[in-house]
């Protein structure tokens, strides 16, 4: 009897779980900490490098040498802004092919000098514009996915806000994928999915739910490795606390990865991505089709 009472109390004190759509809103909160906040809170000695060496310097994607808790890394990430002028300059964190090519150039540099790579994911998606298509947005992302599969240093990817489809994955092929508890990661925006499958963007909350885009969904489906719990009502309520948690989690996972040999690292990364997805396997029935 006593025990029963205790249990009901516990249930009462627990807040109801947020809906997928509420989490989408938190991930896009105007005050949500962006890469620049983490740079000032947990990164020391950030030496930014510019340009893809082909066309331009994409300000939506930044990267350079950085120190996190004394650990030297190559830090690369989507660069959203907060103020309107920042967001215009940084294209709302939507990178062009130049951004993905800069990211790859810096990853290759890190590989040559055995510097671990940390990528910070926070983008609505890769930029869908004329010049992005013209300069090969698809090719730039595809090349990163292929090259990241065999980069011979540890890669840690952290989804801090919006993980927008191919634009996120383009720097997201990590050995460990960490995700903030109110971040999202999806194949398509809920609005985009709703306008295609529900024929109306107003069904975005339904699409958000159906897409399984929250951190707990991704952990359950074996896509991410760890959830970094956000303080209070979300990361925007306590910058220091969330930055500290991100730092701790990155360093802890880096220690694990540093113990692997290059061969083990590449093999385990291959196995990690090979194992992704769920499908049915029927009785084998190889057959001859052409006459």
């Amino acid at each position, binding site marked *: 009897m006593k025990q029963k009472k205790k249990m009901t109390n516990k249930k009462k004190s627990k807040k109801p779980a947020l809906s997928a759509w509420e989490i989408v809103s938190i991930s896009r909160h105007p005050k949500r900490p962006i890469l620049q906040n983490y740079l000032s809170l947990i990164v020391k000695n950030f030496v930014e490098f510019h340009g893809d060496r082909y066309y331009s310097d994409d300000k939506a994607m930044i990267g350079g040498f950085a120190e996190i808790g004394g650990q030297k890394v190559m830090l690369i990430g989507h660069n959203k802004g907060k103020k309107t002028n920042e967001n215009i300059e940084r294209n709302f964190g939507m990178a062009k092919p130049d951004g993905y090519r800069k990211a790859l150039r810096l990853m290759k540099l890190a590989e040559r000098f055995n510097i671990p790579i940390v990528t910070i994911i926070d983008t609505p998606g890769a930029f869908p514009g004329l010049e992005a298509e013209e300069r090969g947005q698809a090719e730039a992302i*595809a090349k990163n996915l292929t090259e990241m599969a065999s980069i011979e240093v540890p890669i840690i990817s952290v989804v801090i806000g919006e993980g927008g489809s191919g634009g996120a994955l383009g720097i997201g092929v990590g050995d460990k994928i960490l995700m903030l508890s109110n971040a999202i990661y999806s194949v398509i925006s809920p609005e985009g999915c709703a306008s295609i499958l529900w024929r109306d963007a107003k069904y975005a909350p339904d699409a958000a739910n159906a897409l399984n885009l929250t951190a707990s969904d991704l952990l359950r489906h074996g896509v991410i490795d760890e959830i970094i719990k956000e303080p209070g009502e979300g990361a925007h309520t306590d910058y220091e606390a969330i930055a500290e948690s991100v730092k701790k989690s990155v360093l802890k996972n880096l220690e694990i990865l540093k113990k692997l040999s290059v061969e083990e690292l590449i093999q385990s990364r291959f196995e990690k991505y090979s194992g992704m997805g769920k499908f049915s396997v029927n009785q084998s029935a190889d057959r001859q089709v052409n006459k």
Partner: protein
Amino acid sequence: MAWYSETTTTKKKSKKDLWIKCKKCHSHIYKSEWEENLNVCPNCNYHGSITSYERINLLFDKNTFKELFNNISPKDSLKFNDLKGSYKDKYEATIKKTGLSEAVVTGHGKINGIPAIVAVMDFRFLGGSLGSGTGEKILQAANYAYDNNLPYIIFSASGGARMQEGILSLMQMAKTCAGIARLNKKNIPYISVLINPTTGGVSASYAMVGDLNISEPGALIAFAGRRVIEQTIGEKLPDDFQTSEYLLEHGFIDSIVNRKDMKDYLSNVLSFYNR
């Protein structure tokens, strides 16, 4: 009365079966002529769609193709429901209708005597979308090429990632590219043939990273859709935007090859690899 109406309906039916209207130049072509010309318009060279098995028959020497990994089919692991119903109902109906088990057919055979592994996507299966099963077959075929040291050719035809599998479909992009990366390391040839249409997550993964990227005339090849871009920039795009000709001009395609020449083109290219 009875004999009269019967004749008219038969006549109507046979007329519809006899002609094909070209989607590009709108000319009427005899169906038999259209099919003899491999679903290509004899008038304007518009390349219509063909099924994966039709393409396999065009590509491989007689009695050499053996299908592999066709025991893989989709799974509704997200229990995805939209207004029209469940993903499970959708793919089960597609399997029944097309006789395919996934959006890609994989196997090995000989192209003018040269052995190769091939993956041929089929747009009829949920718009050729890249799901977990699709990605698995493409990866397994890549692994087969890796283990047996054989060249790998993928024919892509896809609207992109399969939304109904959510994040798992996105991850197929990384999964398939991981397979391609191993081929690159071992110097195994990988040729990508981009068929109309190759868009979204498929263009942004294995389809764009061939040692050689080949296409057919007039194929749509794009990352973002035309409508999305027009909304972003607020203006109309040129007609040839995102066609294989446009991509050739911008340096992303090695060559545009007519369907009837594809087999000889590929075997000729493969004959140069000194391995």
